């Protein structure tokens, strides 16, 4: 059945083109063996084959016809040489028929294709437990190769408690426990409470069984949306745990906001997609041969044309370059074009983002609200209407110019116009980051006015920006000392000019901005800087002069004081001298007085 007969090795990694070889899939998983391909693809079962959702109407006939193999419509597992007969009599694999129409083909083809297991008689009173057909290798009596592959840690004797016997014990106990009550889902915690083993081993086996639909699998459950976060975490856990995992899961789910339709079955993508990055169909580095699994894709497509199987829980595949969207089924079947391989497809997650697509109007509202309310996200959410505040925040962050808008608070109408321009011009994402890069050094300047000026000049054309800058410079120089006023006024002048320019200029603005941005912006900025520097210098000079004068004045005062002090000293000396003289005179006079008195007496004596 398979056309690819050459051995092919699967490489993990992001995409074939990138040649990132993270891990190598063992070579025995060549695509010459569709069963193994099927097995490893289904291993992580992010794809729920709701094709198996409805058990066939006539269970007995169909199981008798094709008990162990799905019909040819689901072609990968058409022949499974390593299929083990199911030991438990209570298991019936519903033959994989989406519609009854397929069943007849199955019945006709199945006798033709070599079947490994003979149809088993079903006991009439047995409880029917459904397991998906891709798990029909399972048997309670043995351990199959699939299990060894998926849970290697139990079989590589690395740790003594993880051995095949322990694995079998855990597995059988879990399965038996589930089958006691197949209609209700068994939880991990219930299981691990009852098993004598370490909880992580139990969890691994439980996840494995859950993923393969051997437990907690019921057809009714398929109509309900599954918890994709759990699946994702499980699959990522699997990818982490077992190194031999396929490449698909190593790519994280990518969220797309646009609605996606399956390319082959024309239905809306519901949960996740697969995207391929492959640019060129022809250049396939790793495909040695043409990878088509089955013969006629279109025939297979017709058979599955119903919407039903794509509506619930399926993964759609998107091929970005070629706009090919494939649902999980088509992807798995290889309904993609010649030359593509499954590793070319990247999984694209479509979850809540799709439901809450941000229309342009909503984006505009968001931006307006942000400007009005700033950080008050509750009010923003109210203003936008219909979005929670968290949604608003996340979307705002995702906007390419979001941060710019956050810093500048004056651009009401200009931002809206910018948005319109953006939408009109279909600017590729590359230009906005470059513009952002250009703006960021200036936007980060601590001077918010500078940031605004830079931003405005980026918006406007080069000539306009230059003229505005010159006007600003002249205004500043004229004002002289009154800088703040000058700045504001000049800025208003600039803004007025530029608002006019925005309306007048058309789509050429942005292109010219990108070219001339680097040239224009430094000039007005430098002039402004120079002016500011001069003013500062002048001020400093004046102040210095003042200080100098004061110093001189103080010096004069100082010298004067010295003089006065000297004078004072002299006067003191004089005074002292005078006092001394006075004293001398006094003494002299006193002496002379005494002498005179004595003289008089003696004279008196002479007389008498």
């Amino acid at each position, binding site marked *: 059945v398979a056309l690819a007969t050459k051995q092919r090795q699967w490489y993990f990694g992001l995409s074939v083109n990138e040649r990132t070889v993270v891990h190598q899939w063992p070579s025995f998983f060549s695509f010459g063996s569709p069963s193994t391909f099927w097995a490893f693809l289904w291993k992580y079962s992010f794809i729920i084959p709701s094709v198996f959702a409805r058990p066939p109407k006539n269970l007995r006939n169909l199981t008798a016809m094709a008990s162990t193999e799905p019909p040819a419509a689901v072609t990968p597992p058409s022949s499974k040489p390593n299929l083990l007969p199911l030991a438990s009599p209570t298991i019936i694999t519903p033959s994989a028929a989406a519609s009854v129409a397929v069943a007849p083909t199955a019945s006709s083809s199945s006798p033709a294709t070599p079947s490994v297991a003979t149809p088993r008689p079903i006991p009439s009173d047995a409880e029917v437990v459904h397991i998906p057909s891709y798990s029909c290798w399972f048997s309670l009596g043995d351990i199959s190769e699939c299990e060894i592959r998926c849970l290697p840690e139990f079989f590589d004797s690395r*740790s*003594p*408690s993880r051995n095949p016997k*322990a694995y079998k*014990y855990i597995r059988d*106990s879990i399965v038996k*426990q589930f089958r006691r009550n197949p209609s209700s889902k068994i*939880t*991990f*915690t*219930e299981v*691990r*409470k*009852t*098993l*004598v*083993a*370490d*909880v*992580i*081993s139990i*969890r691994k086996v439980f996840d494995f069984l859950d993923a393969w639909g051997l437990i907690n699998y019921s057809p009714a459950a398929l109509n309900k949306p599954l918890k994709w976060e759990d699946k994702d*975490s499980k699959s990522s*856990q699997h990818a*982490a745990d077992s190194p031999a995992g396929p490449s698909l899961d190593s790519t994280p789910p990518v969220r797309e906001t646009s609605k996606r339709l399956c390319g082959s079955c024309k239905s809306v993508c519901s949960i996740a997609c697969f995207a391929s990055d492959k640019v060129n169909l022809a250049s396939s580095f790793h495909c040695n041969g043409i990878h088509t699994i089955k013969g006629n894709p279109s025939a297979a497509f017709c058979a599955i044309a119903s919407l039903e199987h794509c509506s619930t829980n399926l993964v759609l595949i998107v091929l970005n370059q070629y706009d090919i969207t494939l649902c999980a089924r088509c992807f798995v079947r290889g309904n993609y074009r010649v030359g593509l391989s499954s590793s070319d497809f990247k999984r694209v997650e479509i979850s809540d983002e799709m439901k809450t697509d941000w229309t342009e109007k909503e984006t505009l509202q968001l931006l307006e609200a942000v400007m009005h309310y700033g950080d008050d996200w509750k009010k923003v959410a109210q203003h936008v209407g219909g979005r929670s505040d968290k949604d608003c925040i996340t979307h705002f962050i995702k906007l390419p110019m979001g941060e710019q808008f956050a810093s500048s608070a004056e651009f009401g109408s200009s931002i809206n116009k910018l948005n319109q321009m953006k939408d009109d011009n279909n600017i590729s994402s590359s230009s906005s980051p470059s513009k952002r890069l250009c703006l960021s050094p200036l936007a980060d300047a601590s001077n918010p006015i500078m940031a605004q000026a830079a931003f405005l000049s980026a918006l406007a054309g080069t000539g306009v920006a230059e003229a505005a800058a010159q006007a600003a410079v002249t205004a500043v120089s004229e004002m002289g000392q009154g800088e703040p006023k000058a700045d504001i006024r000049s800025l208003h002048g600039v803004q007025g000019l530029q608002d006019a320019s925005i309306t007048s200029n058309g789509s050429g603005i942005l292109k010219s901005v990108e070219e001339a941005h680097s040239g224009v912006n430094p000039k007005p900025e430098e002039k402004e800087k120079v002016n500011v520097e001069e003013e500062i210098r002048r001020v400093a000079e004046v102040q210095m002069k003042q200080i100098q004068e004061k110093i001189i004045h103080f010096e004069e005062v100082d010298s004067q004081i010295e003089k006065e002090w000297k004078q004072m000293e002299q006067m003191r000396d004089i005074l002292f001298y005078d006092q001394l003289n006075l004293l001398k005179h006094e003494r002299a006079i006193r002496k002379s007085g005494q002498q005179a008195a004595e003289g008089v007496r003696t004279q008196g004596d002479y007389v008498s």
Partner: protein
Amino acid sequence: MKPLPSTSSKTPVKFRMPTSENLVPIRLDIEVGGQRFKDAFTWNISDPDSEVSVFAKRTQKDLKLPLAFATQIAQSIQTQQTEFRSYKGQEMLTGEKIVPIKLDLRVNRTLIKDQFLWDLNNFDSDPEEFSKTFCNDLGIEDPEVGPAVAFAIREQLYEIAIQSVATARESRNAKKGRRGEYSSISSRSTGAALDLMKLFSNRYSGVRKRKEWDVFEPMVDMLSNEEVAALESMVERKPR
């Protein structure tokens, strides 16, 4: 089967659980906003740390507990893990260690009382196997008993292992100080262990004395609902 490690009685051995696999008993007792969550299970210490949060979330979801439990559970597991790991590099003396393990637990409606001897030197021992055989032999229908028994055994082994680390450290310090008294200290330190010779004091046969039979016999009892309720209320009243 791994060959038994040939450790002489006095040489210290790197710390590990004296069982074939380094599984750590983890006990959870978390109370958040009036809701109490008690649990006990074995954890493989060699598993990556990412498992902790995954397990915590799973448990919280499966049991429909409020979200705060997930972080608490993860924290509790991690602290116990690090505690175990802190012992990792250290040595422990195993010596002639046959320890009595006592089981005295109540799981749902089943009451189990038992006592047996466990060889601490046997690093191939497997409490899980023991527990499975135990439940099979005694016809215990409640599947939750098995893990509880294994957990109880592990917990006790863990405690003993920690003790032997402490005693090894003591003896090492003592060894540095006084060489002569080393042997006496080490023999003193194996307090919990029974000397083989003392155990089989009956030199003529390896069979236990009759009076000891009752002690070592497993007892499994099924309680009725009222008794269970009574016991639970008693237990809850005690810590208050």
